[in-house]
């Protein structure tokens, strides 16, 4: 995989539980099955503890970055 490939982004800002997690699951399962990398943008702190375990169930690693106050980028990735 080259670095030039754009990483798909799922923006779930404004959504509250359980939607950040449900929409991420849907993205991984239905919209982009088997995607190797996905960035989820959220402003809902509880999502930081619901999205990672669900992604791990699907074999993804997780990286969380605070983009700015009250906003986070969750990077989900796995080896091909």
């Amino acid at each position: 995989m080259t670095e030039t490939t754009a990483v798909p982004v799922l923006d779930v800002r404004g959504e509250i539980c359980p939607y950040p997690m449900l929409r991420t699951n849907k993205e991984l399962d239905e919209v982009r099955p088997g995607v190797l990398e996905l960035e989820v943008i959220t402003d809902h702190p509880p999502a930081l503890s619901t999205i990672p375990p669900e992604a791990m169930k699907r074999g993804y690693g997780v990286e969380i970055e605070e983009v700015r106050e009250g906003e986070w980028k969750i990077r989900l990735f796995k080896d091909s």
Partner: protein
Amino acid sequence: MAMQAVEATRGSGLPRHWWAFGVLLLPTLVYLVALQERASLAVFWAVGISAGFVIQRSRLCFVSGFRDLYLLHQGRTLRGLIIGLGIATFGFAMIMGAIVPDPATGAVPQDAHVLPVGIATVAGGLLFGVGMVLAGGCVSGSLYRMGEGYVASWVAMGGVMVGLFALNHTWNWWWDATIATDARVWLPTRLGYTGAIVLTVVLLAAAYIATLWWERRAPAFAMIPIKRAQPAPPASVGDDVRAALQRVFRKEWSPAAGAIALSLLNIALFIRYRPLGVVGEISRWANDFAAQVGQPAGVLKGLDTLAGCAAAVTGDSWVTDGFMLNGGIVVGSFTAAVLAREFRLRIPRQPRRYVQSAAGGVVMGYGAGLGLGCTLGAFYSAIPSLALNGWVYAAAMAAGALAGSQIIRRLT
């Protein structure tokens, strides 16, 4: 290794700018003004601020306590709440023991949340459970999220007031049909304090174990610990102080820590006044707004006989103890969010989310009025009151939350 989970830059340090601590001014000033007026106003404000702070820091969400059991097989929040209930049970028993030394006489401590148990309790709990999952927060949860900047929670609170308005207009029917004759079952009356405490603790332990069992039934997967960026080891007293402050103001507390802190606040408030509850006050707001637009609810029957979260009635002043408590929760949560650098205006992008929050709020509000309380008053303050209604409400609410979870899955 790609499977590694790394929390890279969760950021460290307290607020970027020292003036962020200016948010402490508002709670402090209101406290001082309230103190001049009446001591109880200041106490309810202080407890509200503290409760909002605690709930925000621990993200203590009653909805997720139930909903995540169904959606994720996660029980961490619920187990935290159960521990908090256990703590409150002992504290409440001490207080009630001082008010009613001999429960066998049939006397019931007046301010404890011992409420009529019947169809209304079940129906109220069911509606509340469905509504809170749809709205994405219970009533106290919506109060604290309002402070965090969630626009949807302001909408949900509007819905709650509409629901309470509807309930208050049908209250007298419910009262005559069932509530007036429903028994108030206070466990110590027959079991004594010891028996009631033992029974409550055994039931809580059973619920705790059942939650663990349910979590075990989750589809197995490798939970990779999320690694946190390790800060430099503290090298001075200043660093130690900073680290201690961060643990309180910046890092997320566990649900159990939040639940225990909330129970301690509940006990403290009950020692002097009454247990925590927020719905009676919101009901008063709904009735007053309704009266303003020519829709007064009239005289609601039986309110003077009910403790807990029955609708409050406006007296001399609009600024009451309950007003200070609810306002305190919003402001306390706002304060905590700013200090944690988590405050943000959160605006739903999909129009249907507003509809969902409002509708969930209406259903939840009606249920809260009918069941005489929300997750706080009819559950978190009722089970430690050694009252049967707390358990019935909890069971109905859990069933409602299950139904609500099925509905929201379809609304993705």
